[in-house]
């Protein structure tokens, strides 16, 4: 009798554990999310972490196509060309229990338009968001905006009452070093709930069993343990020893080693991200150079010479081991406005570069400082180091200052660097996004990542007109014109388009998405 009951108990336990089998995904990459505040930083890894906990109205699925998230469907209004109508998903609750309604959407859009928000460029054309009823909203733009939905895929929805109760109605002042409740806490509608977070050490999330899409998506991972590991060798060692199931930012030199290891695979895809250098051409004199009273970077010939000094093929072959595509423009090939001709416009010509420098009056060269991140892009520091050598060959002496991205990015957004590395992914798949952030003159709500000081009113007007231009052909012609100016001015020095490599244990089932933005709800574990 007693033996049977023990057997029964054992059988019951076995049955329960197999149906509720806990699957932990141990996930690592080189750096951490900069903040959890949904609107404070428009940065890839930061969005990636938020996507597990918060949701926008629309997301992109693994293939990059739109998929309904908190909105079930959307369409331009039949009555007014300046209005988009979104139907919201009903029966959705935030992690802390409150129901998701139109009020939260309106609040989130208002919050994302605040001065401290880093998302305001994406919704600059929106003049009003109004509720028709609890589950229908209308978004009014300052002109017809055919590509509005693609600007909303990283715009996360917050619980209005929660922010008010926790004093985080205002977006965190990231550059000012402010820390708010929303920086370290999260209350979204997303598939995973924040369990604990130690910035730069470990973030743990558990499955949201009340998630609206729990039956629609695999959702096989019950717990996510996210560990940033800055050192590339340590990262790979962790993967090889089985401490990690899923690895982003795979060092290019270790692809073969990981792929050959038993139980591990590497999946590859071209990434929607271009790496480039920016130069401060707007200042009268720059701080960290040896030329007083003048700014050598203000001369387009100097900028062209610097671009010509960079041997992109050598960087591709040696530093990137083939895992990149040399670039001639700062748009990834996925983006509307990219052309193969412009992307082939960069060439290496050391003698020509020297001649151009001499023509500009800098035959003896000059010196300046290069600010470089060391935990953000694939081999970022090694690329900068190689560039230092190549620029040295034309007489431009570069002092390299590399540091973690959390210290690097504020230099760009605060305008405190004269020469810097930046990478740009384009979630909207359209050039307007690049222009709004990187080409438009810097103002409070636009051009915030334009560290070049470039400011051309005529061009700015053209950029501003893109969002409301419904004639796609004319719009594309404008985009081509703007790119022509960017190219001729050598506003940036393009380096390459990244190739994406994800390492994973064999039981992890996911395909690489070009935005490097894994959404764990799509993962299978078997």
């Amino acid at each position: 009798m007693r033996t049977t009951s023990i057997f029964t108990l054992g059988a019951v336990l076995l049955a329960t554990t197999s149906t509720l089998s806990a699957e932990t995904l141990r996930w690592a990459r080189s750096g951490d999310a900069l903040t959890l505040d949904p609107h404070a930083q428009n940065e890839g890894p930061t969005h990636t972490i938020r996507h597990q906990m918060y949701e926008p109205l629309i997301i992109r699925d693994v293939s990059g196509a739109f998929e309904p998230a908190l909105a079930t469907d959307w369409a331009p209004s039949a009555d007014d060309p300046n209005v988009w109508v979104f139907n919201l998903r009903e029966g959705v609750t935030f992690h802390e229990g409150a129901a998701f309604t139109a009020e939260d959407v309106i609040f989130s859009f208002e919050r994302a338009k605040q001065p401290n928000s880093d998302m305001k460029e994406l919704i600059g054309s929106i003049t009003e968001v109004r509720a028709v009823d609890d589950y229908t909203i209308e978004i009014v733009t300052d002109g017809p905006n055919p590509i509005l939905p693609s600007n909303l895929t990283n715009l996360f929805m917050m619980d209005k009452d929660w922010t008010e109760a926790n004093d985080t109605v205002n977006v965190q002042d990231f550059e000012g070093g402010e820390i708010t409740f929303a920086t370290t806490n999260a209350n979204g509608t997303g598939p995973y709930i924040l369990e604990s977070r130690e910035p730069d050490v470990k973030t743990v999330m558990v499955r949201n069993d009340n998630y609206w899409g729990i039956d629609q998506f695999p959702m096989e991972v019950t717990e996510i343990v996210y560990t940033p590991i800055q050192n590339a060798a340590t990262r790979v060692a962790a993967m090889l020893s089985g401490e990690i199931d899923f690895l982003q930012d795979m060092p290019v030199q270790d692809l073969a080693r990981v792929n050959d290891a038993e139980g591990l695979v590497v999946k590859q895809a071209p990434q929607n991200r271009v790496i480039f250098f920016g130069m401060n051409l707007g200042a009268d004199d720059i701080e960290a150079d040896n030329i007083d009273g003048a700014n050598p970077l203000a001369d387009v010939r100097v900028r062209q010479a610097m671009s010509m000094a960079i041997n992109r093929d050598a960087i591709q072959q040696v530093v990137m081991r083939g895992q990149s595509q040399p670039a001639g423009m700062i748009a990834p090939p996925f983006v509307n406005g990219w052309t193969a001709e412009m992307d082939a416009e960069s060439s290496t010509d050391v003698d020509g570069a020297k001649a151009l420098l001499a023509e500009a009056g800098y035959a003896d060269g000059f010196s300046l400082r290069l600010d470089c991140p060391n935990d953000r892009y694939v081999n970022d520091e090694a690329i900068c180091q190689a560039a230092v050598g190549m620029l040295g060959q034309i007489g431009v002496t570069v002092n390299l200052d590399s540091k973690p991205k959390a210290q690097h990015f504020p230099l760009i957004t605060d305008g405190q660097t004269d020469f810097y590395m930046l990478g740009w992914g384009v979630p909207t798949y359209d050039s307007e996004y690049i222009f709004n952030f990187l080409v438009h003159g810097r103002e409070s709500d636009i051009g915030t990542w334009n560290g070049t000081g470039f400011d051309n009113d005529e061009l700015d007007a053209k950029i501003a007109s893109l969002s409301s231009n419904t004639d796609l052909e004319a719009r594309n012609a404008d985009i081509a014109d703007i790119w022509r100016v960017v190219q001729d001015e050598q506003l940036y020095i393009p380096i390459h388009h990244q190739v994406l490599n994800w390492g994973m244990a064999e039981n992890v089932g996911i395909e690489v998405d070009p935005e490097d933005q894994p959404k764990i709800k799509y993962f299978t574990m078997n």
Partner: protein
Amino acid sequence: MTDLPDHTAPKLAEKSRLRAFLDSDIFFAFKRSPIAVVSTIVVTVLVLSAIFAPLLATTNPFDSASLNLMNGFTAPMAPNAFTGETFLLGTDDQGRDVFSTILYGMRISLFVGVAAVLFAMVLGITLGLIAGYLGGWVETIIMRIADVQLTFPSILVAMLIFGVAKGITPIEYRDQMAIWVLIIAIGLSDWVQFARVVRGATLVEKRKEYVEAARLIGRKPYAIMLKHILPNVLSPVLVIATISLALAIIAEATLSFLGVGAPPTQPSLGTLIRIGQGFLFSGEWWILLFPALTLLTLALSVNLLGDWLRDALNPRLR
């Protein structure tokens, strides 16, 4: 004619000093110890090759403009696939010749090590002498500071000092200052050993009759400390200095390995090991192995020499 004897006198004295050294117990013990002889030869060769690095090295690895990136990751003694160039110990990820970089890197490691030990020595001896000779509250303050510092691992103290110094130097001068900051950071983390030993020896010496005599004829305290006590406490200092040198070289390598020491464009041995460590899994072993072997050989021989010196100067072991 009269100044001829004056002229030859120092020469004679020098000769006899060398004679005296060759006849001394120390040199006798030295000749009898193969470890001491071998370590001395190794250290001498390494130091000389570091000093004459510009003559021995085939390239100048600190001149970024002279590097050809296409030479990157060339294996030792094998021609590069793109440029056809061959390198004795191969090249690193930036196309730097590993052999030349080791020579130049060793220069930085040795310079930082020696300078840091000298700095620690001067500081430690001064404070130790003052504490031991003056006693009282001066001694209490100095030695309690030393005790507190001893409770922290010295590498932690060095990192703290380095971090603070990096924070207050303007970015433009950071690269040039990095080496000096390293020296001060390592030196400041290491003075305690010297101070404790010198204080202990001073306490013993100051009660001896020659010190009493010097005090009676009215010599000033600083003269007594420098001219009378110091020469008599120097032999343990010499031993500590040698062992400290090995530790300082390793401390510098550790800091650079952690990425807080020498800048990547002017790599020391520690920086080279940090770079090489990223390519261990991918099979480019030479970037790590050769700098690591050099560091090992250097630190080991200096350490062995220090050990031998300690035994040789210890009368109880003779």
